[in-house]
């Protein structure tokens, strides 16, 4: 039974289909681990054993377990607390929503329910997904299971820590500037941010609407493919959801990699990367050459501007999105105020944390009269240049590879004083969001202090199946993805 904590989703699916384990037993196994280990990691903000077991009982009775169109039925899954889940508290890591019990399900949650998956609980995150270390959560930081004095990354840090510590077989995450890939890298997981528009944003609390995209975080590329099959699809309730034919993202997993052309952007292999990260990434590239791939140097000349463009565009969109938190329809309301405007200003000042307020103020400023053209419009033009660079690079290669993050997981407080230092943790991931491309991180070794290193794989628009193939073949040849933190 306890070996099931390391099982792949395919293995769990088979165990359920063969009645070697029931959905209730599987849910209980993980609920017990959460009870035992969550206090040390702070990965979950909400656990509700009764609700989870009720879902598991329903899955056992549903006839979905073992059916070919619902291969994930009966398997537990935990959601980043940015996804609205009906009847569950949905906090987005904020005091603003600390008591918000969602009256509806996000489309992603609804789709996983329809697939028969069992909700294990809600996962901690940086407040409103604004952060790269999980230190901005109102509920306290998540600890990295590989070393609890270090950050798990962010903003999907709870998702990464929970799966790395085997408190959940898989989790959902969201990625606006690297929030799936960077924590996946720092915790030794596989995580995929799909092409913008592939996964519905309905019920996923908005941060920067033109960049936000949900995706799976799991122990392997194969698991990510199965999860994406359930997660992706057109949704009329998301105005930027794409109408495309359904895809089986696992269809190409086993294809050989002979002739694969890997582009290596010279800007991703410059001075910014730590030596231990570079060594692990270089070793992964050597492995890919053994698997039949060739590498070619490409250039993304404007990618150095991506963090700056992002910190105009994302705060601008956030300041607009977060104006809905006004203390009237839901969320926190200040206890004392003089009038309506004072109620808004006090509720928002008390309900939001420091980083969220900083970004709202920056966003308000760059959108304000007289500054819009200089900042917001200019950033959108630079965004076009960045996206065009990728389009040009993909004429020379099938996928792009590089580091996911410039260093292994850093210690708590290490990047505390200067917000810009923290922003630079996402230097390799942000350009991908600006371009709307699919991006992945997979474990490719260990660096300083035996902490995991992530390899980033970026594909052309809608190349998820190809990227998953590229990741899966590497995971067939190596076992970095199967490593688990000691002592858990």
């Amino acid at each position: 039974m306890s070996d099931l904590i390391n099982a792949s989703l395919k293995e769990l699916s088979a165990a359920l289909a063969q009645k070697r384990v029931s959905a209730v037993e599987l849910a209980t196994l993980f609920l017990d681990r959460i009870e035992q280990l969550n206090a040390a990691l702070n990965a979950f903000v909400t656990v509700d054993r009764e609700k989870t077991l009720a879902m598991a009982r329903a899955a056992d009775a549903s006839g979905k377990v073992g059916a070919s169109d619902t291969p994930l039925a009966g398997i537990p899954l935990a959601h980043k607390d940015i996804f609205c889940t009906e009847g569950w508290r949905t906090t987005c890591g904020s005091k603003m929503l600390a008591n918000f019990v969602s009256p509806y399900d996000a489309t992603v949650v609804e789709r996983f329910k329809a697939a028969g998956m069992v909700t294990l609980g809600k996962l901690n995150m940086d407040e409103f997904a604004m952060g790269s270390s999980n230190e901005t959560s109102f509920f306290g930081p998540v600890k990295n299971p590989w070393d609890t004095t270090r950050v798990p990354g962010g903003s999907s840090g709870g998702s990464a820590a929970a799966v790395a510590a085997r408190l959940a077989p898989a989790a959902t995450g969201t990625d606006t500037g690297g929030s799936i890939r960077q924590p996946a890298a720092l915790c030794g997981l596989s995580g995929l941010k799909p092409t913008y528009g592939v996964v519905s944003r309905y019920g996923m609390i908005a941060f920067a609407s033109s960049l936000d995209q949900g995706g799976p975080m799991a122990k392997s590329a194969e698991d990510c493919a199965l999860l994406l099959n359930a997660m992706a699809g057109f949704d009329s309730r998301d105005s930027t959801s794409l109408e495309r034919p359904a895809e089986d993202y696992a269809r190409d997993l086993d294809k050989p990699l002979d002739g694969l052309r890997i582009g290596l952007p010279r800007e991703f292999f410059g001075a910014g990367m730590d030596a231990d990260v570079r060594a692990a990434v270089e070793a992964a590239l050597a492995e890919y050459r053994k698997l039949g791939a060739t590498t070619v140097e490409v250039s993304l000349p404007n990618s150095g501007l991506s963090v700056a463009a992002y910190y105009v565009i994302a705060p601008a969109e956030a300041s607009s999105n977060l104006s809905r938190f006004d203390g009237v329809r839901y969320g926190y309301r200040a206890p004392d105020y003089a009038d309506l405007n004072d109620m808004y200003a006090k509720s928002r000042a008390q309900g939001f944390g420091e980083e969220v307020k900083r970004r709202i103020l920056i966003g308000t400023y760059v959108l304000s009269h007289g500054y819009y053209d200089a900042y917001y419009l200019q950033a959108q033009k630079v965004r076009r240049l960045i996206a065009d660079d990728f389009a040009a690079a993909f004429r020379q290669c099938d996928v792009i590879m590089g580091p996911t993050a410039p260093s292994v997981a850093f210690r708590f407080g290490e990047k505390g004083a200067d917000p810009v230092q923290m922003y630079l943790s996402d230097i390799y991931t942000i350009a991908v969001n600006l371009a709307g491309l699919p991006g992945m991180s997979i474990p490719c070794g260990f660096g300083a202090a035996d902490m995991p290193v992530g390899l980033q794989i970026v594909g052309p628009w809608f190349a998820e199946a190809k990227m998953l193939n590229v990741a899966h073949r590497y995971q067939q040849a190596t076992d970095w993805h199967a490593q688990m933190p000691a002592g858990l």
Partner: protein
Amino acid sequence: MSLTLDDVRRIARLARLDVSAAEAEKTRDQLNGILSFIEQLQSVDTTGIEPMAHAVDVVQRLRPDAVAEADRRDAFQAVAPETEAGLYLVPKVIE
């Protein structure tokens, strides 16, 4: 250019965020740090470049003007700080 304390107070008012006198200076310094970082965008020549508002070119979808959602007012108002008879309550706006 860098922001003054008056600028910070003006932006905070636009954003409906109470910034106390004690926080204002620290906020000003941090915002100026971020603004000086994003200043690098100004030196990029973007003549003739079309701004990119979205990652994928999409056109606004339209749907028939028909009721698509069920009435769930009670459920949605259950999470509001203060309601009465189906209405959201706020401090008096008009004397």
